[in-house]
């Protein structure tokens, strides 16, 4: 489903070049629940943003769902994100002026789904995450956990094959974090490929593949079977 080879990402800051990813290669197969773990500053978000087409690698190859997306033009990527990917961010990234309902429906706006159908599907998506009674709330009128559930509903509404989550529980208390995690696990059991960036050993242990990153390099890439050994 996801295959990257020799990914390099360099940032240029005032003439200095900083290499955030060194020759990163790995594969995540379809239906996998994978975690990317590592210390702060190790390059996890940089990697996930490249996987999501939000950022570009300096060099290397990226195959998503059989397509060489690393070479995609911006608008082709926009289309690919809309169809194939769902995003969950640590800081939720909801549009503050829109209601939960409209936030959730956004991916369908860019898929040209008619208004009526959009609203119906967004309502269903919100009730699936337990927020049927919060349709008209703006993000500021929701708790952190509720906002993250709105974001998950938004990530799922377009029925994407891959879900990318950057510290989805990082801003939440332990209990709410666990709730969100079981929601993600449930989605994975239903067949979705999920990649989670996390600090938490706890969360990593709930995944079937764990990719360790250190100073921009993959130092360990283990499947569950090996982990349990």
């Amino acid at each position, binding site marked *: 489903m996801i295959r990257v080879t020799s990914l390099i990402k360099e940032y240029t800051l005032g003439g200095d070049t900083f290499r955030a990813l060194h020759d990163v290669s790995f594969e995540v197969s379809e239906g996998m629940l994978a975690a990317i773990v590592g210390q702060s500053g190790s390059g996890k978000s940089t990697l996930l943003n490249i996987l999501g087409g939000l950022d570009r690698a300096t060099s290397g190859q990226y195959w998503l769902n059989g397509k060489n997306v690393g070479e995609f033009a911006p608008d082709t990527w926009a289309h690919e994100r809309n169809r194939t990917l769902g995003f969950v961010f640590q800081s939720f990234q909801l*549009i503050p002026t829109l209601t939960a309902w409209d936030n959730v429906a956004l*991916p369908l706006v860019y898929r*040209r789904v008619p208004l009526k159908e959009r609203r119906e599907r967004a309502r269903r998506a919100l009730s699936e995450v337990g927020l049927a009674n919060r349709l008209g709330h703006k993000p500021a009128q929701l708790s952190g956990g509720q906002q993250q559930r709105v974001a998950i509903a938004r990530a799922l509404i377009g029925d994407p094959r891959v879900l990318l989550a950057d510290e989805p529980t990082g801003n939440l208390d332990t209990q709410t974090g666990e709730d969100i995690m079981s929601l993600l696990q449930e989605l994975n059991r239903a067949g979705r490929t999920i990649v989670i960036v996390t600090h938490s050993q706890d969360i990593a242990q709930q995944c079937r593949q764990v990719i360790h990153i250190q100073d921009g390099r993959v130092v360990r890439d283990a499947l569950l079977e090996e982990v349990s050994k």
Partner: protein
Amino acid sequence: MTWTDSFRLAVAGMWANKLRALLTMLGVIIGVGAVIVLVAIGKGASNAVASRIETLGTNVVFVSPTAGTPFSESAISYINQAIPFPVTTIGTMNTASKVSTATTSGGAQVVGTSAAYWKLGALSLAAGHFLTTNEVSQGQHVAVLGANQAISLFSGQNPVGDPLMILGQQFTVVGVLNSVGQGPGASQDNAIFIPITTASPLIGTNQLSEVMVKTGTPNQASLVSDLLTNLYNNRFGSGSMVIASEDQVLQTLQATRATFTALLAGTAAIALLVGGIGIMNIMLVSVTERTREIGIRQALGATREDIILQFLLEAMVISLSGGILGIGLGSGLVVLSPVLFKTPISFSPQSIALSFVFSTAVGLIFGLYPAFKASGLEPIQALRYDG
């Protein structure tokens, strides 16, 4: 994203900052409003001149003295003798006067003239007759009323045979003219014609206000105009008389109109430029404020085109709303203008159409840069932006 959704988004974007949008529109509102009022005033003024020419018939040369030039009744025969072909020459002696009946009073432009005025072919009668040769030669106290005067002094009842006080003396109404209608000829409708022989002693002068020479063809008219100009330049010095054929008046009118139009276009351009810069400024602010929103939309699948359209349409909605409010404001002033300005004013539908086109264009032109700026953001940079 569909067009309907883009449009909805643009309106919502404007609505989210109502006051700011309204203030931004102000430049366009004032610009468009000014254009509509100025066009109406300009059209009204040229209509007033055109109406005078039209009501006095064609092929007429107007002769009027500048201050200090003697111009008495004898000028008429002097002019007739100087012109080598037959013409009709009519003198008028004009003054403003209070007029009253037993029950009503008002003001009128009193025109003292001769029976030959009728030959200009500009008037038609609703009742009675025009001044006759007899009435003029005998200096009778008779009057012919313009249509508006008949209405305001006699409430529309047939006044022929009724008494009327003009210049402090009693006159008898002998005729009523048909209305020349709104615009062209309106001045005629407010006039009262009396014999020049009666007017002269009442005004206390034998100085003519104006002489009109009606010729057979436009060629003859310009010949007469040249001839009389030479004649009076030699006799009283240059500038002693204002002499103009209808052609020349029309030419002057055209020139004035052209100047006015250029001035107007300049004013409108500046106003709309200022309005446009205001819109560009506010759109740039809006793009910066909504950087994160742009990033989110890009992450969820918005293409460059979607983002461009969102901000371009928002600029156009602001600009066009300003245009519509400006049209409302301008039209309101035009409708109220008879009360406000007391000048002839004439509404122009073209200026409304033009305002629509221009305010849309302003939004389009000044919205382009902010819209392209928004669409050029990298998703990850936009998402990380904290403002």
